[in-house]
């Protein structure tokens, strides 16, 4: 079976400018030759220290950033070779959930409107249909649809993340890239959101690329894990193997800093 997503030799180099004259001082190899496959219904964890290139991988896959080189094949279609019209048709099938729920939602739009935005842009639904779909989406993510008229700042971080998830689900995507979806949330709320992500994955057969530095959550949620370092994947294994026999020193250092299982063994 063809993988849902195949990334081959992906590179993204940013040029760096310094000083008054903005001389080109060199380049940052944010992503430097990344390859992996993601199968339908699978969850792949992407871990690695801050600045190693995880978000850049996500953004290039979604074409929010143009890659320097490499191939991104989504459901058998090479995204670089495809026409803009065909690319637009593929867009709804790939969505992203962000870490910062403050800046990922428009502060002036009520949350119902935010959730409806992708519907407005990509479907020809009527107003009534959109309203029904927004209500449905809100109930899927555990929000009372009576709250649709409220602004994002009236919500807690966990509720805003639910709004972000509802919005990502609006167009019935196949792939959702979750970039640190729980790291800005409170400890007592993280488990709620992780459960929600697992529930909707099962219900809608979603495929996840799950970016996180929380190895416990990665182990809990992911089938396989890729460890990134300085723009490259240095280790990729099933979650089970990675946690039992971590190979890379960075993975080992992270694992050793985890607290013991409290209460139960």
């Amino acid at each position, binding site marked *: 079976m063809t993988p849902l997503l195949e990334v081959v030799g992906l590179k993204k180099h940013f040029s760096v400018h310094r000083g008054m004259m903005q001389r080109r001082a060199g380049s940052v190899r944010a992503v430097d030759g990344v390859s992996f496959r993601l199968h339908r219904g699978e969850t792949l964890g992407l871990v690695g*220290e*801050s*600045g190693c290139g995880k978000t850049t991988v996500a953004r290039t896959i979604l074409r929010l950033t143009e890659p320097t080189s490499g191939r991104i094949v989504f459901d058998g279609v090479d995204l670089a070779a495809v026409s803009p019209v065909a690319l637009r048709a593929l867009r709804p099938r790939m969505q992203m959930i962000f870490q910062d729920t403050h800046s990922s939602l428009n502060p002036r739009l009520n949350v119902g409107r935010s959730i409806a935005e992708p519907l407005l842009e990509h479907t020809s639904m009527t107003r009534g249909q959109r309203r029904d779909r927004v209500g449905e989406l809100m109930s899927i993510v555990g929000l009372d649809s009576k709250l649709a008229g409220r602004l994002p700042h009236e919500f*807690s*971080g*966990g*509720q805003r993340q639910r709004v972000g998830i509802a919005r990502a689900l609006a167009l019935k995507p196949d792939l959702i890239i979750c970039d640190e979806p729980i790291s800005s949330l*409170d*400890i*007592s*709320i*993280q*488990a*709620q959101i*992780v*459960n929600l992500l*697992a529930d909707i994955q099962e219900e809608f057969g979603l495929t996840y690329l799950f970016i996180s*530095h929380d190895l*416990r*959550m990665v*182990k*809990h*949620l992911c089938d396989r894990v890729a460890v990134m370092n300085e723009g490259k994947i240095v280790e990729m294994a099933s979650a*089970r193997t990675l*946690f039992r026999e971590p190979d890379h020193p*960075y993975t080992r*250092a*992270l694992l050793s*800093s*985890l*607290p*013991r*299982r*409290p*209460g*139960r*063994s």
Partner: protein
Amino acid sequence: MTPELLDDGSRDLLRVRGLHTQFLSDRGLVHAVNDVSFSVRRGEALALVGESGCGKTATMLSVLRLLPRHRSRVRADEVSFKGRDLLGLDDEGMRRVRGAEIGMIFQDPRASLNPVLTIGRQLTESLEVHLRLGRRAARDRAIELLESVGIPRPASRFDDFPHQFSGGMCQRVMIAIALSCEPSLLIADEPTTALDATIQAQILDLVSELRATREMAMIWITHDLSVVASLADRVAVMYGGSIVETAGARRLFDAPAHPYTQGLLASLPALGEEGRGRLTAIPGQPPDMTRLPEGCAFAARCPHAFDRCTLERPPLLPAGKGVPLREQRAHSSEKQAVSAEAGARAACWWDG
């Protein structure tokens, strides 16, 4: 390690009793800190954990007297440092304590650095003032400090301004400044949250070493339980503006007494367990601090809540070593500060 007695004959470096802090806001009166008592001994590491908005920062800023006077109300039965009453000090005296004896690292590193002074100058300034080092010696020491907090090639970054440093690097500079005056107490407010795992480990190692060699005590505010496990001797868990449980770090992880702590620990995914299943999440959300309930602040989310919980706020009392809480409560009715000798305490009516 047995701490020496301080001037007032006690072992507590910092002692806080009955602290209350309120903020005036558009939403009404925010009850940020409600009857908080704790103490820290020389060389001891206390972790203060809890979710955002539960009053951790407000507690520390109240102790350090750094809250804006016109927007906040602070009162306490006691705030003493090395036996000296901090509430009675004038502003100048308080400034001296903060600069030289208590080192501080704040949550927002960029906002606490001066944008128009170089990184090097901000460090040498404090070294010259507090340790009375000469220019040359201060520079050498500053470079050493920058190196110890993981700034690569510190000599070449010495004349950089804060905006040329990444957020994580500014955080490390703040840590270097806080440590530069060799304080006997370090108060750090979520200092490693913005740092990646390897730098975080490096900073925690550095801080542990300072504790060992200089008997530096610290209060480490965090919501990261893995940091707590690797760093703290003792943990105080805050919820809704109050300390709801305090215990030795080991004990807290092995036998949490308060339903909130139990819920937090149970919601962590297991590392050893095979198979996935659902996480045991705590339902609901933290309380609105302008409308705290009369009884237990956790009641709306607690699986064990019963009628008394909503009527009366539970005090912080010894949690039993297998002894029912009820019996212990009969013996300790008076309010006591959280201290190292006191063992585990929890604020909960439930008997388990």
